[in-house]
């Protein structure tokens, strides 16, 4: 499970650089900034009282509750970057400036002494899905866990995000409330956790590919979403592991369901041990990673239907990369840990299994092992932002943004990952078609020079304007960039070359120089 969550965040990170980690305030920080606002219903604008309003960004600020007129105040705030969100029973959780759950909200940037008065949060009524779950004999199924997962479509894949969880009562009844409008998959699982746990998708099917999505609008009540827990027979997959000589080999394997969407409710990882293993699997695409005690590794992807399937998984010697991180300017702080990854593209079977990474401190040597298939060598700071990779040097070649295909046992030693903390920043504002300033927009910046997709994705950044209509992007590697304002940008989906090419005509060029801030006015692209 943990691996599945890690892998999902890997996907996000590929296009979305980590936000700067904020030092946690010691305790009950105080300052001189004030943030005020109001919580109202989205449909009628009526004030909502007793709504719980919380500030993201700084964890130590206590939540507040709205008064009868829906108003709230956070006083004595330290300067900072705040995300304001509200919760109230019967309404969908709402974040200031967030148009849809998968789009970023408007951050509120406050300096010392600033007062921001207009944080209006418009809360739509939440939807609910309720019903009854019975077993194959018609008896109510008590203590089944029922999960509504929201389906969020991305450019190349779909994720499901658990939005509500309920447990059936003695009548087999459940209610999944507080749902934002969207498309949901409802699953029910038998009470006992573990390998014997059975999951069924609404309307009572064993495979997620057969699940029937439920679309809800604000305030919808999907009553009588009843289904029968009648687990059908699942197909068996028999995997025989073989070593380099083709002899049967013992292996430890993880198998994860990777279709048609990924996510906490969708990915279940089944551990397996032995030379021949036979789990029963729901229909769909499965990704398998195996390793043997002798150091062999194997990666495979298999489609399971309703018939039993057998595969042989040859285990090969895994590739190995060793080296050091070096700073462009020579000095690398001892206490700056980096995460070095043998990053697998999503299109490869390895892309959805286990991330290969190593955490190293400063200039300590790193080692990546068990590498198989096409990989890119990447590094990112584990804690503090600001460091970025400028080159990956091996044998006089720069492997930055290049795929290295590991076929079995290749070793790259003495790799130098060159990093720098001498990035620059860009900030500014944006104007519309008639030259009027924009109050609320998204920003996409990307390298001016066309190049490999990996380079585009490494250098592209997305952001959103704050409450003043300004934007800021920090820690950009120096170079020539293009920037554009957009009505909407899917920050979770990585940009493609075709997409940015369409934006070039309206884009504003700018140069990012070491340790400097460039201010630009971006134009809105349709």
């Amino acid at each position: 499970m943990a691996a599945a969550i890690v892998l999902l965040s890997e996907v996000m990170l590929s296009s979305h650089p980590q936000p700067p980690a904020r030092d946690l305030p010691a305790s009950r920080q105080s300052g001189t900034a004030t943030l005020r606002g109001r919580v109202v219903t989205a449909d009628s604008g009526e004030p909502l009282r007793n709504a719980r309003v919380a500030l993201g960004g700084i964890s130590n600020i206590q939540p507040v509750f709205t008064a009868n007129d829906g108003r709230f105040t956070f006083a004595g705030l330290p300067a900072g970057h705040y995300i304001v969100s509200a919760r109230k029973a019967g309404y969908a959780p709402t974040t200031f400036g967030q148009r849809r759950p998968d789009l970023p909200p408007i951050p509120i940037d406050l300096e010392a002494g600033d007062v921001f008065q207009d944080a209006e949060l418009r809360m739509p009524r939440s939807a609910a899905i309720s019903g009854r779950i019975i077993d194959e004999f018609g008896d109510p199924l008590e203590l089944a866990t029922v999960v509504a997962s929201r389906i969020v479509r991305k450019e190349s894949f779909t994720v499901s995000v658990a939005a509500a969880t309920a447990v059936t009562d003695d009548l087999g009844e459940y209610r999944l409330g507080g749902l934002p409008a969207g498309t949901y998959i409802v699953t029910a699982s038998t009470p006992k956790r573990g390998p014997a746990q059975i999951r069924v998708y609404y309307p009572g099917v064993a495979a997620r590919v057969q699940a029937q999505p439920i679309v809800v609008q604000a305030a919808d009540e999907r009553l009588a979403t009843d289904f029968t827990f009648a687990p059908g027979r699942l197909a068996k997959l028999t995997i025989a592991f073989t070593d380099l000589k083709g002899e049967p080999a013992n292996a430890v394997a993880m198998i994860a369901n990777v279709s048609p969407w990924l996510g906490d409710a969708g990915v279940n990882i089944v551990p397996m041990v032995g030379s021949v293993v036979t789990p029963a699997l729901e229909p769909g695409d499965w990704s398998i990673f195996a390793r043997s005690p002798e150091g062999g590794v194997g990666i495979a992807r298999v489609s399971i239907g309703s018939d039993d399937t057998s595969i042989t998984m040859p285990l090969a010697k895994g590739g190995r990369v060793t080296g050091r991180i070096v700073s462009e300017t020579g000095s690398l702080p001892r206490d700056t840990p980096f995460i070095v990854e043998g990053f697998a593209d999503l299109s490869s079977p390895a892309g959805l299994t286990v991330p290969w990474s190593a955490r190293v401190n400063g200039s300590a040597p790193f080692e990546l092992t068990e590498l198989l298939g096409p990989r890119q060598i990447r590094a990112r700071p584990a804690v503090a932002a600001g460091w970025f990779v400028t080159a990956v040097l091996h044998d006089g070649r720069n492997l930055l943004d290049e795929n290295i295909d590991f076929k079995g046992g290749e070793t790259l030693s003495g790799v130098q990952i060159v990093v720098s903390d001498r990035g620059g920043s860009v900030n500014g504002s944006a104007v519309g078609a008639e030259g009027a300033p924009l109050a609320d927009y998204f920003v996409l910046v990307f390298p001016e020079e066309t190049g490999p997709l990996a380079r585009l994705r490494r250098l592209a950044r997305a952001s959103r304007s704050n409450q003043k209509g300004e934007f800021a992007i920090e820690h950009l590697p120096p170079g020539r960039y293009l920037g554009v304002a957009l009505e909407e940008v899917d920050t979770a989906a990585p940009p493609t070359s075709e997409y940015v090419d369409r934006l070039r005509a309206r884009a504003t060029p700018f140069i990012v120089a070491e340790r400097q801030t460039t201010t630009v006015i971006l134009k809105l692209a349709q």
Partner: protein
Amino acid sequence: MTSLVVVLFVLAALPQAPLPLPIGTATIRGHVVRTDGPPLARAEVRLLSTDKPGPPRVAMTDESGGYEFATLPAGRYTVTASKTGYVALEFGQDRAFEAGQPIVLKARETRERVDIALPRHGAIMGRVVDENGEPLEGVSVSVKEMRSLGGRRQLVSVPGVLPRQTNELGRYRVYGLQPGDYVVSAEVGRVGSDDLPGYPVTYFPGTINPVEAHRIHIGLSEEVSSVELALTPVRTARITGRTFTSSGEPFQAGVQMRPSWRSTGAIAEAVGARAQPDGGFEFSNVPPGDYVIQAFKGAEIGWQFVTVNGADVTDLAVTTLPGSTIVGRVTFEGAETPAKRDLDIVPAPADPDQTAFFGTPSSAEIHDDWTFEITDVSGPSRLRVTRAPSGFALKRVIVNGLDATDAVMPFGAESQSVVDVEIVLTREVTRITGTLSDARGAPAASGAVIAFAEDRERWYQGSRFLAASRPSQNGSFVIAGLPPGAYLVAPVDRLPDSDGWQDPGFLGVLAAKAMRVTLSDGQQLAVNVSVIGR
């Protein structure tokens, strides 16, 4: 691989019956149905031999609710049926707490129609709203019973009944209830959390004092709905302080807090503090009320009373005490000394607020020469003989030459230790004997007789002036060992569970219809009492 299979097989086999089930020629058959008629398929039926120990046999009912146990040896059996959502019952039982009807089988006998009708569980449903009547989500609703434990009213959870959270409509459903009287409580943002502060634990219909809570009666299979609780915010406060050992060292203690028994009249659940290694502790979101904070480290315990009224309480110091020691000897009036040391001497806590929230109190170690020692005693206590050798009763307790029988003595500090305690036992044991009869004048085998001192000052937990006895099959009862004095004797048709009958309120009601008797040293008294109104 083969060895692995063998190991698994052995492991799987171990928990199974180590002895083969005895084989016989008798058979039991029957059906499990719902009390309203339809058969219950896939109900679990357990057969237990009452005369031969051994594992139960288990069967599942078929589609028509039928089950069968064959190849049974002759003997005496009980049959119990259970199913999720239903009250488990034994054959012959109409209610969970009544006696069932065992089945006596002869060899080659087939007993048909051993049918069991299961009632559905009861349930309580309702809604929790805030002060504006708007639903409160995520409130934990519990159903509890007010029990008397150690003579004190205490809210206890009902076994097998889980608290439920309200949904976004504020609705809840708590189920799995046997017939009985229940208290419903709603809790949100409990002490120590910042989730939804400002609401105290509230009992239906809207009180924060558990003693004032309405009892909701649930009959068999009854579902009570519309049990609505409105929570009203109060000014909550934060309590901070530090814990110190008796030698003045700060330490990271287990720190617990609960509403004071003195102000609520009932014992509520304790909550834990956020504690730091430097001895600092913090309780947040504390509603107004009187509380007792207890810190403990090993055998050391400390108490601190706090009254909270909306304002933060800071810099509270809780110092633990090492516990006192009680040393003494047991003596006997007259020449006779019992052969065996069948004797328990305990310091019985006299103040629920200054009783360890957890753990068992210390008891005396009695030596061969009838001397004894009790260590780690904390909190005001009375010295009690909870078990006396056969034919003996407590006469008096002498501490430092003074009569301290039934006296509350402070303990906790080393300076409060006592080393000259004499426990005097006597053979002059009082006896109240009699016969309990029902309304028709026939001997009553059920019910009980309670004898209690006329003096209400004696109505405290574990008082030796309170006694209860259940009659034998012919209605006769014996109450032995009460100290001399004036007593009230009253029959009851059912003895409240545990020592709930020691509740002063309960005794007060009984006093009105009780018979007055006077006992002098070693007096034997015969009385006849009737259970009225059955």
